[in-house]
C-alpha cells in the first residue's frame, strides 16, 4: 500500500502550506458572497438628464415618477437637447428624456404627446435596458393620466390585452438565483483543475518528481495520490459554498443535496483529470497556468454560465457539448432551483462520467516514468 504513504505526504504538504488551506476557505467564501452581487445584469443607478420644454404640471409629474422609480438618478436638468447631449459625452448622464413643448396640452386634447428618449449605448445591455425601463415608466404614466383625468371610453380599455407572466422556479427573476449555482461550479472547476496541475508541475520544477519516477511506485498510484486530496478539497469547497448560499441568500436546494454531491464528485474528478493531463505536458508552472487558463476560460464561456447556451450561434452550441462545465452548471441549476432528480439528469451524469474517464485515462497514459 504505497498509496497510503503518498497520500500522507500530500496532506502533510497541504497542511504545511501557509497559503493553500486559507485559500481553500477564502476563495469560495468571497466568490459566493461577492460575485452574485457584482455579476448582476439588473441595471440600476442610471444617470438621467431631463430636458423639459413644457414646464407643465404633467411634465413635472412624469419627471418625478421617473426619478422615484428606483432605477434612475436625476443628475441634470438642462434647457436644451445639445447641453444634455454634452453631458452624455462627459459621461455625466446615460439617458436623456426630452419632453416636447405642448406635452400637457396634447395629452388633454387627445393628441399624441411627444417624448424623446436618447440613450448612450456604449454598454449595449445597459443602454437597451435603461430605455426599456424608461418607456415602461412613460407608458405607465400615460395610462394613469388617461384613466384618471381623461376618462377615456371604457370600450378601448376592455379591448386592451394584459399579459400576466408567471416565472417558474425563480419567481422574482432574481439574477443571483441563476448565478449562485453557476459561480459555485466555476469555483469548484478552478480549484479542482488548477491545484493538482500546479502541484505536479511544482514537483517537476523542484526535481522531486524525478526522484519519484526512479522509485518502483506505479504511475496509476502516483496519479491517484494527486487526485484524491483535491477530490476531498472539492467536497470541502462545495460544502462551504452551500453554507454561504444559505447564510447570505437564504438559498436552499430544491432537490436533494446528496445528488449534487454525487454529480460534483464526478465533475471534480473530471476537472482534476484535466489538470493532470496539462501537468504532463507543461514543464513549468507558468506554462501550466496558461494552459489551464485557456481551458477553464473556454469551458466557462461555452458552459452557458453567463449567457444561455440556446442563444449562442449554432456551431458554438455544438461546441459547448465539449465543456464539462456546461453539464454541471445545468445539473446544479436544475437540482438547486427546479428540484430535478437524478433520473431527469442521467445523461448529464453519463457525460460527466465520460469526461472523468477520458481525462484521467489520458492523464495515466500520458504520464511517463521513463522517457
Amino acid at each position, binding site marked *: 500500500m*504505497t498509496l*497510503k*504513504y*503518498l497520500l*500522507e*505526504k500530500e496532506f*502533510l*504538504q497541504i497542511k*504545511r*502550506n501557509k497559503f493553500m488551506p486559507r485559500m481553500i476557505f477564502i476563495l469560495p467564501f468571497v466568490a459566493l458572497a461577492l460575485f452574485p452581487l457584482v455579476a448582476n445584469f439588473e441595471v440600476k443607478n442610471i444617470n438621467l438628464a431631463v430636458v423639459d420644454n413644457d414646464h407643465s404640471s404633467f411634465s413635472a409629474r412624469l419627471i418625478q415618477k421617473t426619478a422615484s422609480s428606483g432605477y434612475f438618478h436625476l443628475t441634470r436638468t438642462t434647457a436644451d437637447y445639445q447641453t444634455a447631449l454634452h453631458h452624455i459625452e462627459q459621461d455625466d448622464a446615460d439617458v436623456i428624456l426630452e419632453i416636447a413643448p405642448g406635452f400637457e396640452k396634447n395629452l388633454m386634447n387627445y393628441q399624441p404627446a411627444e417624448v424623446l428618449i436618447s440613450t448612450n449605448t456604449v454598454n449595449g445591455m445597459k443602454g437597451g435596458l435603461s430605455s426599456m425601463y424608461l418607456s415602461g415608466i412613460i407608458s405607465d404614466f400615460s395610462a394613469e393620466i388617461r384613466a384618471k383625468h381623461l376618462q377615456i371610453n371604457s370600450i378601448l380599455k376592455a379591448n386592451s390585452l394584459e399579459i400576466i407572466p408567471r416565472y417558474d422556479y425563480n419567481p422574482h427573476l432574481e439574477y443571483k438565483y441563476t448565478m449562485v449555482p453557476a459561480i459555485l461550479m466555476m469555483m469548484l472547476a478552478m480549484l479542482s483543475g488548477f491545484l493538482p496541475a500546479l502541484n505536479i508541475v511544482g514537483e517537476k520544477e*523542484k*526535481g*522531486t518528481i*524525478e*526522484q*519519484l*519516477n*526512479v*522509485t*518502483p*511506485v*506505479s504511475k496509476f498510484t502516483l496519479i491517484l495520490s494527486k487526485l484524491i486530496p483535491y477530490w476531498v478539497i472539492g467536497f470541502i469547497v462545495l460544502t462551504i459554498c452551500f453554507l454561504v448560499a444559505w447564510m447570505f441568500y437564504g438559498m436552499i436546494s430544491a432537490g436533494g443535496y446528496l445528488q449534487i454531491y454525487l454529480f460534483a464528485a464526478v465533475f471534480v474528478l473530471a476537472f482534476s483529470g484535466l489538470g493532470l493531463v496539462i501537468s504532463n505536458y507543461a514543464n513549468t508552472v507558468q506554462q501550466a497556468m496558461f494552459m489551464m487558463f485557456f481551458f477553464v476560460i473556454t469551458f466557462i464561456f461555452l458552459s452557458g454560465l453567463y449567457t444561455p447556451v440556446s442563444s449562442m450561434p449554432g456551431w458554438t452550441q455544438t461546441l459547448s457539448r465539449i465543456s464539462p462545465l456546461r453539464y454541471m452548471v445545468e445539473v446544479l441549476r436544475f437540482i438547486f432551483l427546479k428540484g430535478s432528480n437524478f433520473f431527469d439528469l442521467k445523461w448529464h451524469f453519463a457525460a460527466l462520467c465520460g469526461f472523468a474517464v477520458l481525462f484521467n485515462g489520458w492523464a495515466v497514459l500520458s504520464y511517463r*516514468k*521513463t*522517457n
Partner: protein
Amino acid sequence: MEKVIVVENLTKAFGRFKAVDQISFEVEKGEIFGFLGANGAGKTTAMRMLCGLSIPTSGKALVAGYDIRTQPEMIKKNIGYMSQKFALYEDLTVAENIRFYAGIYQVPEKEIAPRTQKLLERLGLEHEKDSLVKSLPLGWKQKLAFSVAVFHHPGIVFLDEPTGGVDPVTRRQFWEMIYEATDSGITVFVTTHYMDEAEYCDRVSIMVDGKIAALDTPANLKKEFDANNMDEVFYRLARNASRKAD
C-alpha cells in the same frame, strides 16, 4: 566477480546530437565506480538510462540483471538514486521524508521507525528529526539524501554529482558514508567532476564527447598517462574535447 551492470554500445541521441555515443563497460558487485567527465560529456544522460528514466536510442544494458529497455520498473525496485538536484521534500521534516521514501520502496511499516532512529543517530541528526528539511544546511541535506537513497538496502546506488557545492570537510564525511555503504555490499555508481574524489573510487571511467575515453583503476590511469594525479589525467583527455562545457 558478479557483474551488476553490463553496458554494451549504449547510445542516446537527441535528434542528430549523440549525447551518449556507443559506450560499453561493466561494473562489479560491491565496487565504487566513478563516472567522470566534463559538464556536457553525457554522464547524466548515461546514468538516467541506467536508472530506467530514459530509453536508449540503441545498444543494451543490464542493471541488477534486468534489461533497461524492457524492465525499467524492475530496475527501479533494486536501485537507489540521488539526483544532482536536491530531491527531498523541503516542506516535510527529516523523519517524514525518510518515512515517505521508505514507504514507497515498501520497507515494512514496523521496521521504518526503528531504522529511522538508528540512521539519525548515526548521522547525528537525532535532534533534527522533527525539523523541516529546508532548515538544514546543504551538507546535511546531501548526507540525508544519500541515506534515504540507500535506506531500502538497494543492490546498487546511483549518485549524480552528490557533492556539488559542498565544503571539503563534508565531502570527506560524505565519502566515508559511501565506504560504509559498500561494506554492506552495495555497489556505488557515482558521477563527479571533482578529480580528488576520483581517487576514492575503485575504478573510474572518463567520458569525453559522449564516449568513454579511458577506464581503469586510478593508479593504472596515472601510470598510463604518466601523471601525478587524476587532475592531470583528466586534463590530457578532456583537452581535446570538441563539446563546450555548459
